[in-house]
């Protein structure tokens, strides 16, 4: 199998036949069932809690409260902002927070027990808007924080934006807003845990088993080796399974009861008790010269982390870093603030703040194009980052800058759509563009991955990886990379994945980092395995300086004419000496931390680029927007598995369409898929994926990543297209019926 071809996904057949057991499907006969008791208001003080009535329910085994947590009841992915209480400790910080946990012999008994717990809550003054949260005198969400409700403020300062704006030929100023979005992975959170030989074993859906292990150990107050986490097959994540969810409850109950336990969230619980995409309000001022070259961008961003920090620090920083988009902007002044409120918390979701700022930076490009009388594609092309130019953080990119190629690939489609627009009756069509860049991996911090490869004496080859597979295809890609390096077929490599006892830390399946970072770690492990085999071969041949080459299952002397050996002979030799044929690999991208005052630095080693255009039709009688077509050009460096790249693109586009047109989480009113709508097949536009391969020097065979980039340009492109169709800019998402109708009616009112 050639790298870059379309490989069939590992595990696809088991999924198609119903054999795969996801986290949600875990559980066996006799397991106890766990259900949380959730606060019906928040913020509030717990005046009293009486769980005796729950214990009287037949089948209820035990009720846990915060006092039963042996370790630290403050968890969170970012070490400096662990603040999430898994069982409320006197104070309920948001509506729906868990206050107790019921364990019972059946789901019915657990639910009945949860209903029987009497919790008396006293309302406390709360704050639900980030601007209000930062105003003087606002109620504090975490009274112990010296910074009050401000979680974080990030600045990116380059040049002198004020002076450059004052000198600019054109200026555009506008506000943008985007609400909270739910991941709505089809699988709801679930898993199982049991106690064995002084350890707790947790098998649940997750995007990061090694992080889970560390936090569960903190929660139980034990060393990490007392906790084993195994990633259950995971039915989609999109960032929603990066925070721990059911895992602490499972671990706590198994630890105390020494019995197997299972837990599965309902869809309502998934809405209420997992993170959402951060809402953003954004005010931008952008300037350009007469020719349309950007002179400066100034941006003020405000977001809400909700009651807990989760990934807030990362989202705040990443939004700031990407705020000016994939363009050469000589003068930059970005300020991004994120505040605590008493809303349910927000966290990582596909793109970490970049989809939000992309709405604004692309809206600004459209506004500038209009002000300059230029074509929006030409304006973007003129300003697109190129190799050897500096980003907003002053990072000069040497290779892998493929935005101009993406735009050129789009151009014929874009022009054909622009010329073919039809307006008839109530229907108006429009075409919009969205561009983006996305730094691969975590921002300005070390984020290594590790892997091992082993050649077993019976000839099987095993790849050990901690990388969580969520459906994005990492199993398949990592195996392809390993096979390519060793000269084997992917099917010849067995995978051992996502088990903290058997694999080592690969970091999160997030930030589009696994192909690039873990891909490199796997190649490094394969190289080290090869070295081990070649050294063994030299010893076996008694020739220490022989120049050898590994080709699949053969070892050849370089230059051709010399000796040939089978790997199996070497393996037998090494085994006879009691030596393991297992080698490790590691990769950590090159970065520099951002300057705390100016945000300047090299936060990522590689960036993905993309441009998409959307063709929409608006029914001006009903406000209904139909996205008819999307063309999506993505510079992925190198497509390792073409089919998977295209699948990611089509899936990302569809999620972007949902974010653009229909998705907004409203606490209390959108609590299931009945009233929170995600796109169905009937909403699916025709998607044309265009793969651009501008090799990234440091990537595995030139690859970067595509998971998040696939989504980021879609909403801006759709918003731009609707704006064109309606003849007025649409800067708040989602563009639902009400919002579109309001725009149509106010536009009509303004007609002379």
């Amino acid at each position, binding site marked *: 199998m050639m790298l870059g071809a379309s490989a069939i996904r590992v595990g*696809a057949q088991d*999924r198609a036949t*119903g054999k795969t057991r996801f986290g949600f*499907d875990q559980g066996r006969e006799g397991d106890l069932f766990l259900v949380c008791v959730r606060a019906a208001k928040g913020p509030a003080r717990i005046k009293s809690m009486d769980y005796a009535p729950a214990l009287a329910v037949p089948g209820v085994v035990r009720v846990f409260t915060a006092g039963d947590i042996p370790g630290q009841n403050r968890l969170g992915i970012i070490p400096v902002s662990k603040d999430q209480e898994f069982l409320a400790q006197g104070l309920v910080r948001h509506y729906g927070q868990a206050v107790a946990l019921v364990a019972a012999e059946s789901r019915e008994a657990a639910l009945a027990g949860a209903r029987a717990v009497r919790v008396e809550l006293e309302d406390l003054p709360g704050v639900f808007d980030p601007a209000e949260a930062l105003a003087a005198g606002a109620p504090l969400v975490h009274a112990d924080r010296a910074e009050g409700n401000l979680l974080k403020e990030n600045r990116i300062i380059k040049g002198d934006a004020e002076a450059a704006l004052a000198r600019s030929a054109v200026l555009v100023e506008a506000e943008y807003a985007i609400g909270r979005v739910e991941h709505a992975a089809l699988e709801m959170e679930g898993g199982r845990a049991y106690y064995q030989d002084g350890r707790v074993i947790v098998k649940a859906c997750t995007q990061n088993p090694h992080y889970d292990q560390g936090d569960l150990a903190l929660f139980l107050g034990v060393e990490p080796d007392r906790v084993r986490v195994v990633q259950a097959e995971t039915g989609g994540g*999109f960032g929603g399974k990066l925070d721990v969810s059911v895992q602490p409850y499972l671990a706590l109950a198994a630890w105390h009861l020494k019995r197997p336990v299972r837990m599965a969230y309902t869809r309502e619980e998934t809405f209420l008790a997992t993170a959402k995409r951060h809402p953003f309000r954004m005010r931008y001022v952008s300037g350009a010269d007469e020719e349309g070259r950007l002179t400066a961008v100034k941006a003020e961003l405000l977001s809400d982390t909700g009651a807990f920090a989760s990934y807030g620090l990362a989202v705040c920083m990443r939004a700031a870093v990407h705020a000016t988009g994939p363009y050469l902007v000589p003068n930059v002044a970005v300020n991004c603030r994120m505040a605590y409120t008493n809303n349910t918390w927000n966290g990582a979701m596909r793109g970490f703040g970049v989809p939000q700022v992309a709405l604004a930076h692309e809206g600004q490009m459209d506004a500038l194009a209009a002000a300059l009388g230029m074509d929006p594609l030409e304006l973007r092309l003129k300003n697109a980052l190129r190799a050897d130019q500096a980003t907003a953080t002053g990072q000069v990119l040497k290779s892998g800058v493929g935005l101009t190629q993406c735009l050129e690939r789009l151009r014929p489609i874009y022009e054909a759509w622009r010329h073919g627009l039809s307006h008839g009756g109530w229907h108006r069509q429009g075409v919009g563009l969205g561009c983006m860049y996305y730094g691969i991996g975590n921002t300005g911090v070390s984020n290594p991955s590790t892997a091992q490869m082993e050649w077993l004496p019976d000839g099987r080859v095993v790849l050990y990886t901690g990388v969580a597979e969520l*459906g994005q295809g990492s199993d398949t890609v990592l195996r392809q990379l390993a096979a390519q390096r060793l000269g084997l077929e992917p099917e010849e490599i067995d995978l051992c994945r996502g088990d903290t006892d058997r694999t080592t830390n690969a970091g999160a399946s997030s930030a589009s980092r696994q192909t690039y970072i873990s891909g490199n770690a796997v190649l490094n492990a394969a190289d080290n395995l090869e070295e081990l085999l070649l050294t063994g071969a030299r010893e076996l041949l008694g020739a220490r300086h022989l120049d050898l080459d590994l080709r699949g299952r053969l070892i050849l002397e370089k230059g051709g004419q010399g000796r040939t050996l089978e790997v199996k002979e070497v393996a037998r030799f090494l085994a006879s000496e009691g030596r393991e044929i297992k080698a490790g690999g590691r990769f950590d991208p090159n970065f520099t931390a951002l300057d705390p005052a100016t945000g300047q630095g090299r936060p990522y080693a590689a960036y993905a680029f993309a441009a998409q255009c959307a063709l929409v039709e608006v029914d001006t009688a009903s406000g209904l927007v139909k996205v008819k077509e999307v063309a999506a050009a993505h510079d992925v460096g190198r497509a390792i598995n073409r089919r998977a790249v295209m*699948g990611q693109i089509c899936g990302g586009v569809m999620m972007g369409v949902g974010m653009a047109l229909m998705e907004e989480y409203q606490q209390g009113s959108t609590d*299931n898929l009945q009233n929170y709508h995600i796109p169905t097949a009937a909403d699916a536009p025709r998607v044309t994926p265009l793969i651009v391969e501008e090799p990234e020097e440091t990537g595995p065979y030139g690859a970067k990543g595509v998971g998040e980039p696939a989504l980021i340009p879609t909403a801006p492109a759709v918003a731009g297209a609707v704006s064109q169709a309606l003849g007025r800019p649409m800067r708040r998402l989602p563009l639902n019926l009400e919002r579109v109708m309001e725009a149509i009616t106010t536009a009509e009112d303004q007609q002379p």
Partner: protein
Amino acid sequence: MELIFKLNGEEVRLSQVPGEESLLTLLRERLGLTGTKEGCGVGECGACSVLLDGKVVNSCLTAAWQAAGREVTTIEGLAGDEDLHPVQRAFVEAGAVQCGFCTPGMILAAKSLLDQNPDPDEEVIKNALAGNLCRCTGYHDIIRAVRRAGKLLRGETS
């Protein structure tokens, strides 16, 4: 209540099935057939789709007793004695399986469609699958898979 029905070709007899139990709970909890998924419990996502006398239904909204005397096919039984039913094969080969959580329901909905309409066009497929949500694929490869399955079933390709 005693309940007798045919499940994946074999007769099943169960006693003491509560009247309000859903077919989904019966399949997953009582019979351990976890290939039928749950994604909402309220008839919105189609992850729980099964075939009842060959027609696709949401098992979360179907009371278990409604299966009495009828034939239920779940994903585990679709292929019969084969490894894969042609619809399953088409899904695997077309890259229509990403996380795979929607896949069992999607495949059964597609099978039900193709039984009624062996050669549906894109619009028909989109509308027929509109009750089955997928968050990963954007439906693109699922639609391709259904067309491919149609071809396989009509014997137009191997």
